[in-house]
């Protein structure tokens, strides 16, 4: 079963994080709905050409997040949790907001200036999509 995940070599983040991120993305987009079967750890390891231990790590983390459910002998499937895509979006949003806030505080950027820049950025994003 071909997962269609791809890894970026030039990306210095650990591979298991890239796998987690891409699985999140597919779930958030609805491509991998609740109950969707993930490839087995060994299958994904062979497909992506990465070590079994890396894939295992990603799957363990995804299970810890409650995003996937693993059953002995059956494999892993996407968890049947409603609003999962929203939960993932929230998980992405919070760290970004925190990072932005820290940056602003460190560089002493006033809230109004930050708001203005945010509005500007949203405008640019809407224009390009």
């Amino acid at each position, binding site marked *: 079963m071909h997962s269609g995940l791809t890894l970026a070599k030039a990306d*210095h983040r*650990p*591979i*298991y994080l890239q796998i987690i991120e891409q699985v999140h993305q597919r779930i958030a987009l609805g491509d991998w709905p609740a109950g969707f079967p993930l490839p087995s750890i*060994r*299958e994904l*390891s*062979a497909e*992506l*050409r*990465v*070590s*079994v*231990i*890396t894939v295992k*790590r990603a799957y363990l983390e995804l299970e810890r997040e409650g995003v996937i459910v693993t059953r002995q002998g059956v494999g892993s499937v996407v968890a049947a949790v409603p609003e999962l895509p929203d939960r993932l979006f929230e998980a992405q949003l919070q760290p970004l907001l925190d990072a932005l806030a820290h940056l602003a505080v460190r560089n002493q950027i006033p809230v109004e200036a930050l708001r203005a820049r945010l509005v500007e950025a949203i405008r640019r994003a809407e224009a390009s999509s």
Partner: protein
Amino acid sequence: MNDFAVRLRGVGKHYPPFSLHDVALDVPTGSITGFIGANGAGKSTTIRILMGLVTADVGDVEVLGHRIPAATARAKQDIGYVSEDTRLFPRASLQWHMEFVARVFGAWDADYATSLLRRFDLRAEQRIKGMSHGQRIKAALLLALARRPRLLVLDEPTTGLDPVARQEVIGALTEVLRDPARSVLFSSQNTLDVEQIADRVSFIDRGRIIDADDTAAYLDRWRRLRLELAVPGVLPALPHVVQATVHGHVATVVTDRYDETTVDACRANAVAVQGVERLTLEEIFVTTVMARREEVAA
């Protein structure tokens, strides 16, 4: 099925002026173990010992449950071995070699061999003499892979290969692991390959194993910390520092035991942490070797 495809304990070998000391090496069944070391560090000698080509002076060697060198011939029935110095018969074709290997071992997957011929871009009718260096390596690997042996022992399998061939070989190796009863041990100077596909990695330097762990665990516990010192030029003693450089207020520290307490330890010593970076396996290896050499010199 054994838990370990390869187990070396306390292996020593003396070849003046070089020696192997107290070498331990484990390859758990169903895993890929990478073996990293500089030229002349002892990778090839260790591999020859586990293949029974060279007898250790001391120590225990067990491969696929067989004692080596007593049961070497039986062990080799299930091992695919390709080393950097493997040479095939120049006047024969790859086809001849394929038939010979199939006859001698009795195990051969013809469909898989055909698929490998295509992926490795090789022609079976071609004579070994007429092949380039890279093609010969791929041919030798094909002969080992198509038997689907329980253990693959490869000494520098990607050295000398172009990027495309390297990817195909890496792909073929990770495919081997679809079967949890099969294992791979490969030595490499190319730490990228090891970082990518190895479950476990062992470092060897000057005849000694200097570290061995799960690849992920390694990459998790090593960090480079960028620090700002309170007093210029003075770096307080921090735990588990492998390497440290100090210039004025700025210091860079490499640790091999990073966890939540590391940053706390820095703060406790009035040292500000500007950044925490992961290291590549190559950086970890080089740092470890350099640190050891300084220790020995000191």
